[in-house]
């Protein structure tokens, strides 16, 4: 087993990985940029290496700097987390060349599956159903326009190298096509260093259901059931759960089997996710393979009781999978809410800035994978994810109740978060019914506004804060819990 591992990521996922490494008695090396000098992951690690300026290209995407950091610290392996270099085949190849273990699939597998068009070709060959669309990337706008015409609008522009909704655009009419393609190309090249795009037919009202897989270097592949990730904004998931309310046992087995054959067809190794779209008739279509740990992996960990990161590391060390398919079963229900730094009242606009105070929810069945703390300034340069709040309970109904209470108990002061919006989703009939399709927010919460029903209490709190604060500010006040006399608050005198 490894003695020291470098985590080439930041924020909550870097912390989550390092927590498992600590349990395994493996030393942790983190990396950080200028913007992350005070980031939680840097502070948590045993050792941290500065790898460059704040712009991702100069730090977290800077392969040479990360390899150098691993060499200098004597880290034997690199865990890439998600995003950044996690699905970068060149980086995996470079690690191999420099005799550092990349915790993920081999470079050629990442390359094949990372190119969504080649992945589609592999799936078609192994009889896994795919959505109608292109299987070759295209850069020429007029050819893309022609393809869109053939498929029929609406179409989905996707980055060939894509993931996490970056470089993705849905286009309803021809006149929007040119701008959308250009924006998608730019976003893709910024996020992945590769601006190639292609088109898929946009399915109406699909569900997004994915299967977690684990594959070792000895040819053993298992799946760890599904995650339902249909609730999205800007094509990025915000709520995930397992089990999916849409799957019968039969369908679950069929999708699990398809995912395992997809993994085998691709020569997959380590943890991965096979994503499917499920249409209204319960037909499923291959979407893509994510060749990394997913943001929403805790949902699977909660219902199966399996630490996916631990298995990733064992697999990377060449160990045989100790689990077989029959060992995998779901217990209860888990839900994850992503807590982003963004404003739900204002089209989910990013909301970076200083966290004046925060308090995490606690209690039975509550897990918060968190990358922030009181006093931390959320930087503008990176993804807005702050933490992932996950609950586990006996069944879906109880998990929803638990999530509502956990959200109400989660305090983040200073930046905007979608917490009140998530509470309203959890409380909605549509969510309770399990009516979760990818257009959920547009359908059920098109122009969400918070219901500020406790404004009267907030006014009282305002006055209570004003009046009791002067006590702590005034060292002469002896009775700490009492309000000051009018003489003590003369500066705050009111008629």
């Amino acid at each position, binding site marked *: 087993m490894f003695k020291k591992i470098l985590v080439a990521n930041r924020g909550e996922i870097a912390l989550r990985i390092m927590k498992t490494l600590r349990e395994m008695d493996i030393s942790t090396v983190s990396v950080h940029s200028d913007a992350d000098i005070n980031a939680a992951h840097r502070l948590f690690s045993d050792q941290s290496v500065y790898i460059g300026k704040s712009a991702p290209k100069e730090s977290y995407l800077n392969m040479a700097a990360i390899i150098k950091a691993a060499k200098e610290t004597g880290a034997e392996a690199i865990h890439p987390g998600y995003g950044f270099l996690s699905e970068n085949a060149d980086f995996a190849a470079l690690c191999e060349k420099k005799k550092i273990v990349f915790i993920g699939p081999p470079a050629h597998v990442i390359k094949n599956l990372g190119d969504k068009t080649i992945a589609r070709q592999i799936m078609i060959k192994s009889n896994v159903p795919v959505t109608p669309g292109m299987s070759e990337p295209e850069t020429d706008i007029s050819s893309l326009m022609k393809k869109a015409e053939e498929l029929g609008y609406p179409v989905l522009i996707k980055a060939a190298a894509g993931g996490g909704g970056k470089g993705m655009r849905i286009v309803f009419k021809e006149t929007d096509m040119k701008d959308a393609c250009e924006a998608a190309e730019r976003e893709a090249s910024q996020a992945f260093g590769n601006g190639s795009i292609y088109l898929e037919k946009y399915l109406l009202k699909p569900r997004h259901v994915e299967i977690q897989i684990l594959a070792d270097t000895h040819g053993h592949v298992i799946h760890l059931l599904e995650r339902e990730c249909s609730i999205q904004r800007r094509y990025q998931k915000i709520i995930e759960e397992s089990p999916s309310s849409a799957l019968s046992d039969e369908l679950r087995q069929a999708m699990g089997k398809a995912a395992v054959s997809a993994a085998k067809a691709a020569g997959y190794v380590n943890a991965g996710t096979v994503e499917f779209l499920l249409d209204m008739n319960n037909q499923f279509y291959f979407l893509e393979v994510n060749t990394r740990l997913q943001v929403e992996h805790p949902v699977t960990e909660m219902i199966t009781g399996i630490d996916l990161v631990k298995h990733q590391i064992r697999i990377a060390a060449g160990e045989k999978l100790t689990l077989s398919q029959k060992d995998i079963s779901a217990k209860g229900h888990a839900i994850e809410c992503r807590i982003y730094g963004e404003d739900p009242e204002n089209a989910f606009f990013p909301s970076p800035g200083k966290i004046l105070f925060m308090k995490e929810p606690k209690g039975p069945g509550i897990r918060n994978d968190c990358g922030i703390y009181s006093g931390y300034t959320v930087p503008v340069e990176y993804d807005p994810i702050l933490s992932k709040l996950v609950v586990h309970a006996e069944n879906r109904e109880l998990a929803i109740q638990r999530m509502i209470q956990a959200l109400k108990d989660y305090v983040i002061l200073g930046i905007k978060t979608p917490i009140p919006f998530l509470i309203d989703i959890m409380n909605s009939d549509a969510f309770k019914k399990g009516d979760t399709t990818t257009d959920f927010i547009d359908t059920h919460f098109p122009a969400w506004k918070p219901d500020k029903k406790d404004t009267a209490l*907030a006014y009282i709190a*305002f006055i209570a804060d004003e009046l*009791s604060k002067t006590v702590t500010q005034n060292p002469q006040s002896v009775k700490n819990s009492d309000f000051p006399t009018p003489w003590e608050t003369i500066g705050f005198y009111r008629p």
Partner: protein
Amino acid sequence: MEYNLKQNDETKKILAAITEGNTLTLTMEEKDIQAMVTRISDHHIHMDLDDGNGRKGINVYVADDNGKKIIVINGMPYYIEDDDSHRFAKNKKRSGANIPDVVTPPMPAIVISVLVNRGDRIEKGQKLVVLSAMKMETTLTAPFGGTVTKVNAKEGDKVAPGDILVDIEKEE
């Protein structure tokens, strides 16, 4: 004491008196409320409320932010201002963020590209600056037609609400 507290554009008058020790008596909309206040920390207050129909304990979380208080109750943030302090405060220069007629980012961001140059004639709605914040792209457009008199931003700049990125002379 009289407070005039404001949320969004709505102001409410509240009378408050400290009756004993840590108890407040408040009058709001002709209703009397007693609040026993326990300060737990700089940002955490526990209140025991009695409005005549029974007692209720509640935890509130508070922080001062840009002249307002952020108050979180049961997961919901409230942004409350003291209307009196507002009135007496020096006529503070309002940040550009609240004025619709200037080209300023809605949140802290990084400039991806500037699409116009000094001297350009532009039309209302024309794209001026592409920004990126937390990996999301937004484009600022011209609030009115006119001529670009100055460009105050370049690629890679870190900008914030209130920074005016492009000066435009309005076409009459």
